[in-house]
């Protein structure tokens, strides 16, 4: 005797509807619309025509590969520095030293201060005539005269990275500090009993235990850094001579400053593709390392 089939309970699905609708409206629809626009000549002109792959061809015919390379260089250097400095800061903040709470508070301002204000302050610091970095350099004899950090390609590129690291490091440090504090104390006590040195305990207990947090934070940081707009725009607007023009700046200039929505959308689509590939590769690498027992 067959059992009567259980009626489907629709209520849980009903509860999901608002979330699905919101996701479709604020994520899926803009993405689909951007993809559609990338195949059109959408511009200030109200009349729009489909142009196939023309926007993508134009993009690659220009300096796009150079922009992509620069974007990845900016991201890799920035994220690496943020992770290294953030890890060092987390270790220091986790150490049982007097004034630790105060230090934990003092590390937050770069993250708390509105980005635009922080970047403007850095802009003044990079100024050759009035900025403190150039002034200090001259005082200690490193510079023979005023030096404008934003006036030259390499120094402007590095200056934007330094500012990005300043803004991004506190979050990394606090996140890693939280991960460090979740490591069970008995592991350290057992290692200490066995005579393990401080560095050995850090290398063999702390690092493996916080590695998942580091992996997550570095991926998030990579995505944020890749898409970072305000720091570069406020400091250099992508100059001098495009030396700080990353993909997001290039997209903004094309789509918003020049009203070439179709061409700008093609660039935005490429950003989504690059970040998706990067994330997949990154997770594959993490999985591989986990299987090898490195994590």
């Amino acid at each position, binding site marked *: 005797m067959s059992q009567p089939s259980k009626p489907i309970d629709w209520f849980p699905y009903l509860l999901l509807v608002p979330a699905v609708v919101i996701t479709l409206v604020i994520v899926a629809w803009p993405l689909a619309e951007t993809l559609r626009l990338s195949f059109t000549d959408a511009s200030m002109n109200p009349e729009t025509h489909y142009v196939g792959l023309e926007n993508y061809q134009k993009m690659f015919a220009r300096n796009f590969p150079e922009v992509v390379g620069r974007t990845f260089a900016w991201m890799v250097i920035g994220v690496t520095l943020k992770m290294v400095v953030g890890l060092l800061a987390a270790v220091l903040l986790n150490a049982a030293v007097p004034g630790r709470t105060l230090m934990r508070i003092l590390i937050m301002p770069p993250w708390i201060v509105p980005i635009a204000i922080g970047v403007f302050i850095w802009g003044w610091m990079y100024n*050759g005539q009035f900025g403190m970095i150039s002034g200090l350099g001259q005082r200690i004899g490193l510079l023979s005269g005023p030096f*404008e950090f934003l006036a030259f390609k390499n120094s402007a590129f590095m200056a934007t990275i330094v500012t990005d690291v300043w803004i991004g490091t506190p979050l990394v440090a606090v996140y890693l500090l939280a991960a460090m504090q979740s490591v069970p104390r008995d592991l350290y006590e057992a290692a200490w009993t066995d005579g393990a040195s401080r560095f050995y305990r850090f290398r063999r207990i702390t690092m493996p235990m916080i590695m998942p947090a580091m992996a997550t934070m570095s991926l998030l940081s990579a995505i944020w850094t890749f898409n970072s707009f305000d720091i570069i725009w406020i400091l250099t607007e992508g100059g001098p001579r495009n030396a700080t023009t990353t993909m997001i700046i290039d997209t903004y200039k094309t789509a918003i400053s020049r009203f070439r929505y179709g061409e700008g959308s093609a660039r935005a689509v490429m950003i989504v593709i690059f970040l998706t590939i990067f994330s997949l590769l990154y997770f594959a690498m993490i999985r591989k390392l986990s299987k090898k027992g490195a994590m």
Partner: protein
Amino acid sequence: MKKLTSILGAAVVAGTSATGAFAAEPLHMIMCGDDTTPGIPVQQGFIDEWVEQNPDFTVNVEYVPWGQCQEKSMTLASAGNPPALAYMGSRTLKQLATNGLIVPVDLTDEEKASYAAPILGTVSFDGKAWGLPRAFSTKALFYNKALFREAGLDPESPPTTFDELLAAAKAVTENTGAAGYGMAAASFDNTMHQFLNLMYSNGGQVVDEDGNFAFDSENNIQTMTLVQNLAPYSEPGPVAYNRGKLETLFAEQKISMMIDGHWLLDRIPDDVEWGITPVPAGPMGSSSSLLITDSLAVFKNSGVEEAALSLAKYLTDPDHQMAFDIAEGYTPIREGKAVDDLLAGDASWSTFIDIVSKGGPEPLVNDYVAMQDAIVEAIQGVVLGEVEPDEAVEVAQEELEYVQ
């Protein structure tokens, strides 16, 4: 009860129709900047007068910060929700017109005659005017007399040619603690503007009379060579400086010369001993100035185009415009008694007003930002020593032809 309902119903109908009869149509106007400048109450007074004469309309003025106002109007228009009237840099008019977003402005012969021809040229192409000039500026060379004296130069004989400009910049740099020349080379619109002042003073062009790009010329190579030669005698790192930052350096007496508008006088301390002279002439030209106007543009498809044009003409009527110019401290757009009074009260205006007839407009092109990027990149390449002037000019010409 029935009677009461009927009365109430009649009242509602009457009220509705009365509202319909007197509902004034809103006219959306976008202005750049904030509403605190001295010209704004003057403008509002004229708007109120116009509304009084045109009771079918109300005018909603929206003030948008300078950095976003043009983009806002253009984005609204391209999205099909245009303002009726907007304050725009005249350089954007061709792009707006070719995309069918604004309507041409029909000017009577009398109205045309009220403007100096070069000023009308900043808003005209294909034989039509596309905006009504609302704000105007010309430029001249400011110099620091004390620094000239310290450098062994005669402060009463400012440079009049490219060669003299270079020689003066060199003398100041080598004999004082200041830089000889203030050069704007940042990724910013006024980097191009500074260059165009020198370019017009050497007979150069960006676009010729037939609308073709004419940037790659001997005139412009010479001007770019001047930029190259001036760079070592400018403030350190010109690529980090736009005109606004140079104004601070001039006020601090860290540079001895810079090209700027009359407003610089409001920004320098009293102890700075300044002089003003026309932009020095190149070997192939005579002193000139870039003429920059901002305009009131009437947008298509707002539904109130005719009223918007009427309001724009009312605001820019010679008397009303002059009152606005004087209140704001702008270079007067038209001639007249008020200009004579201005000159009588402040002789420093004469250099800026006398140059109008010899000035050249901001080039009207289909993609202004692309043109600006091409020219700024050429200037930066020369200043950074990455390209020679002839190559910079040639590449800029190619870029201009490609992106347009």
